[in-house]
């Protein structure tokens, strides 16, 4: 049993989500429906995308503290430029992805600590977002709005989106050759370099992928909220890091799981709703959210330790 969990690290996140989901349905039977599941999880879609973005950075042994501010900026661009002047909007978003790739180059080339660079960048993104949208407002482009509120016949949008994000990133990171090499950069960059791969370009690619998913997160968020403000997604920085770890990822060594990251994001979103259904005082909610996180991580640690002793 413990071995099974240790071998397949994806099992624990799945189990955590299942337990939490069962508890939520028990507390609030109304949630057990097409309509209910969509309401529970639709705001988790942008969080899942942001978590995947964070995963791309953690995959190469870095960490991104600017993600929340970046997603907020994307939200502001989406609600203004992408709506009013789509061509300019797309150009700006492409420029933001390029900026992320540039950050990867900068961090690798000058051996800067990512934590410092991204912390600094969070103020840059925040500043630009404020200058684009000094007061809350803007309008979601209608096509994004209809994409995020689409009602597929059998399974709610939120579930379809989560499965789609998990499947695409799993294929990209786990199945393809380039994905394997990218994880290798996190595992042992020196070996990858000696094998003849340009590590600088690989890091730029990982950061660009993070930028891409950050952009998708911002667009998805605006599709749900219908408009933006400059602080709309600041929480995503910590949520995304927690989601990656909750999903079975590790801070170092290139050990990440795209499917786990998506499940981690869903679990975090669900944990907040569950605590709210419990009618727990807000003073305790952050603490309780942290407790859930520690509980899952402790469980994981126990399983991996046991496996080490036995194997």
């Amino acid at each position, binding site marked *: 049993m413990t071995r099974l969990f240790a071998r397949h690290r994806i099992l624990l996140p799945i189990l955590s989500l299942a337990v939490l989901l069962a508890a939520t349905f028990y507390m*609030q039977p109304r949630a057990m429906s097409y309509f209910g599941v969509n309401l529970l999880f639709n705001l988790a879609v942008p969080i899942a995308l942001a978590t995947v973005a964070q995963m791309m950075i953690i995959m190469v042994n870095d960490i991104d503290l600017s993600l929340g501010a970046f997603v907020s900026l994307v939200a502001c661009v989406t609600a203004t430029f992408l709506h009013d002047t789509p061509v300019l909007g797309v150009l700006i978003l492409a420029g933001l992805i390029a900026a992320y790739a540039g950050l990867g180059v900068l961090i690798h080339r000058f051996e800067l600590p990512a934590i410092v660079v991204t912390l600094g960048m969070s103020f840059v993104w925040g500043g630009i977002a404020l200058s684009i949208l000094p007061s809350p407002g803007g309008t979601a482009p209608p096509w994004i709005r209809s994409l995020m509120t689409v009602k597929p016949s059998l399974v709610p949008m939120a579930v379809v989106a989560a499965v789609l994000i998990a499947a695409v990133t799993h294929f990209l990171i786990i199945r393809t050759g380039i994905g394997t090499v990218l994880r290798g950069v996190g595992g042992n960059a020196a070996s990858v370099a000696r094998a003849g791969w340009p590590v600088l370009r690989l890091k730029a690619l990982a950061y660009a992928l993070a930028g891409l998913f950050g952009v998708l997160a911002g667009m998805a968020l605006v599709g749900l909220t219908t408009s933006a403000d400059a602080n709309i997604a600041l929480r995503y920085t910590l949520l995304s890091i927690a989601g990656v770890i909750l999903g079975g990822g590790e801070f170092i060594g290139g050990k990440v799981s795209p499917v786990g990251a998506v499940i981690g994001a869903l679990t975090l979103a669900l944990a907040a709703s569950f605590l709210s259904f419990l009618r727990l005082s807000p003073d305790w909610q952050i603490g309780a959210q942290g407790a859930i996180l520690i509980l899952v991580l402790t469980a994981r640690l126990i399983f991996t330790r046991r496996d080490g002793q036995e194997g």
Partner: protein
Amino acid sequence: MKSLLLSAAAIAMAAPAVFADTSDKRIALSNNYAGNSWRQAMLQSWEDVSASAVSSGTVAAADAFTTSENQATEQAAQIQNMILQGYDAIVVNAASPTALNGAIKEACDAGLTVVSFDGIVTEPCAWRIAVDFAEMGRLQVEYLASRIPDGGNLLELRGLAGVFVDDEISAGIHKGVEENPQFEIVGSVHGDWAQDVAQKAVAGILPSLPEIVGVATQGGDGYGTAQAFAAAGRDTPLIVLGNRQDEMAWWAEQHAENGYETLSVSIAPGVASLAFWVAQQVLDGAEVPKDLNVPFLKVTQDTLEETLASTPEGSVATTDYSLDDAKGVIAGAM
């Protein structure tokens, strides 16, 4: 799954029923922040009014929820959870005027009534109980004119630069001066709605000013202004106050010493109870305009002692609105 869809549709159809009984209706308060005295007083006011409404059977439940962090995304999730919990109406003090629109639209589409107050939302399906800050400024000059018919020089205390509320109140004060040309604003400083900042700012500008007959303020800055005048050895002008406990305590003290009289005006945190009754009225089938204005809470010499006694130290004066008050506000907006 189907049954819930059906019941959601049933709720949607039942909502506009005329003069329905609200005794089985459940109302939720979605609040984004509880970290200052105003919000604490607001939650207390909700607690008081909703508890008595529930015990008298007017509504079935009126629960208050505060998000653990002041973030729009979290509040949007909170509102979606309220839909799932089967509330009939949501009263919301919003973290953002626009970022909750998606969640609020979901609530409206599910047949819920949404009433926003203080921090209002722009989604057209929601009701808005807004504050007419400009009128609050104009009112001050009107009062000064009634007390000092001959007019004279005024000092204007402003709030935090760049904030919408500051611009609004200031615009109202300037409009008041236009209507009463016997007054002239000879100085204007930012007190940031804080007594210590106001005191420093006023102390800085005072030496360059001629005799001041009156001061228009924005609340939270009147006591500091008075201290600055006293420290400079100048006569205390007529300072319009903003309902803070320290301001009213100072006023009472001055009145006991030399018969000082003034006016104090601000927004009562009890506006939460007004929002509660407006939601109840909408559920009841009453015709309520989407845009309502919050009445100001005025403290005059007659009500000073009573208000001061009921205001805890460091807090701000408040009042709980009744159903009749709410009906009055609704009728006023028709």
